[in-house]
């Protein structure tokens, strides 16, 4: 992996971070609200007002959560079938990053829900799935930390199981999906064209941030593993006490 990747992505992300904050408060409309009418969600009214601005953080983080989880899942399957350590490093690093992004999604979502629905949490489809996904990620990270030598196999098995659990969680939650979502008219949350530049820049910023974090973590995980392997070889050869 190119050694400039992390600094470049991180600094571009930092610039984007400052820029998006400025744009969120200066170039996006404030009077946005969700109303439901016969199953369709559209924008109008003003009760969300300023609080809607958390959208520019919440949604990009959710995108990155899914990107990270998908990367981790695919890497886990590749590790189980090919047994190449590289895939396991990627699976672990992206799962850790996914856990961080997932925490941000849940916290920002909860703040938004308090304003939009007057409750911190409801057991709605999308929320339940995100929460259980996040819990599985935390379990995954715990296994990697505390399961010792067989942690890689155990964790990749867990990732595969988690993937087949997801559709069951979807059908398990009977309640309607009242979460604001993309509809036939495009993403409902960006229907106002004035929101789009800020939103897209925000997604790009967090994508860069995600790539920087994941690349740095993958390198860290690989180094940890190499040190461990060297130490084992040293012990085997009798060089280390």
């Amino acid at each position, binding site marked *: 992996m190119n050694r400039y990747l992390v600094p470049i992505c991180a600094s571009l992300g930092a610039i984007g971070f400052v820029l998006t904050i400025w744009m969120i408060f200066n170039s996006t409309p404030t009077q946005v609200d969700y109303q439901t009418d016969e199953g369709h969600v559209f924008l109008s009214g003003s009760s969300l007002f300023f609080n809607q601005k958390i959208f520019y953080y919440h949604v990009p983080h959710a995108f990155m959560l899914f990107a990270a989880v998908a990367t981790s899942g695919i890497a886990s399957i590749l590790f*189980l079938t090919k047994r190449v350590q590289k895939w396991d490093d990627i699976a672990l690093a992206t799962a850790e990053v996914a856990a961080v992004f997932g925490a941000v999604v849940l916290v920002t979502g909860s703040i938004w829900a308090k304003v939009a629905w007057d409750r911190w949490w409801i057991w709605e489809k999308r929320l339940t799935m995100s929460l*259980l996904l996040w*819990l*599985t990620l935390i*379990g995954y990270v*715990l*296994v990697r930390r*505390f*399961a*010792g*030598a*067989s*942690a890689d*196999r*155990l964790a990749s*098995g*867990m990732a*595969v*199981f*988690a993937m*087949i*659990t997801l559709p*069951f*969680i979807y*059908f*398990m939650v009977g309640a309607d999906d009242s979460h604001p979502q993309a509809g036939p008219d495009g993403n409902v949350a960006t229907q106002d064209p004035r929101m789009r530049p800020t939103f897209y820049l925000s997604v790009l910023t967090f994508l860069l941030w995600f790539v920087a974090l994941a690349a740095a973590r993958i390198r860290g995980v690989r180094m940890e593993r190499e040190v461990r392997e060297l130490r084992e070889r040293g012990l085997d050869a009798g060089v280390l006490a």
Partner: protein
Amino acid sequence: MTVIGQALRVAGKDLRIELRSREILYTMAFFGALLAVVDAFVFPANAKLARAAAPGMLWVAIAFAGTIGLGRAFDRERENDTMRALLLTPVPRLAVFLGKAAAMTVLVLSVSLVCVPLLSLLLDVPLVEHPPLALALLLGAIGFSVTGSVFSAALLKVRSRDVLLPVILYPLLIPLFVAGTSATAALLEIPRNDDKLWYWIGFLGIYDLAFLVVSVWIFESMVIE
């Protein structure tokens, strides 16, 4: 001998060991009974509330007692390193796995045999009068044992296996417990809600099938000595 025959031999071996000491059976069943009693104390003795809470109590008792049983059942294979011997026997790994899961299913079912009458007695909820509950419990026990056996076997050599088992297992099993609880709740509705009941029993069946297929595939790559 077919794989099924071999699996039955493995299950028979496990159950024979268990029947000689009855250690897991007694401790699991007693723990399940204790949970039922604790539930009866901590929840208000209100007939309506009890009816709403009883399905949840039943499945929580099964989950907790089942986890204890799983840990103990696989500890037994670890103590004398018999898991290695078992994996070295000239039968497919599939048979070993299926046998282990089948024996575990029997143990989990025996816990529910204690919990169901006790809960329905202590909380005055008519759980015993509904035969479809047995089907839901059987499917629940199969799903729990299949997934639990894979991870218990993989955790065998791990030092902190006792805490890691529920950490891994519960997020994956939440759909199973929700389906079981919902099916039981459908039974307790007045009048009985058959549509809901069979939806959740079907859900349990598909869940078991999917997890069984993946477990069979994963077991070999996860449990290597």
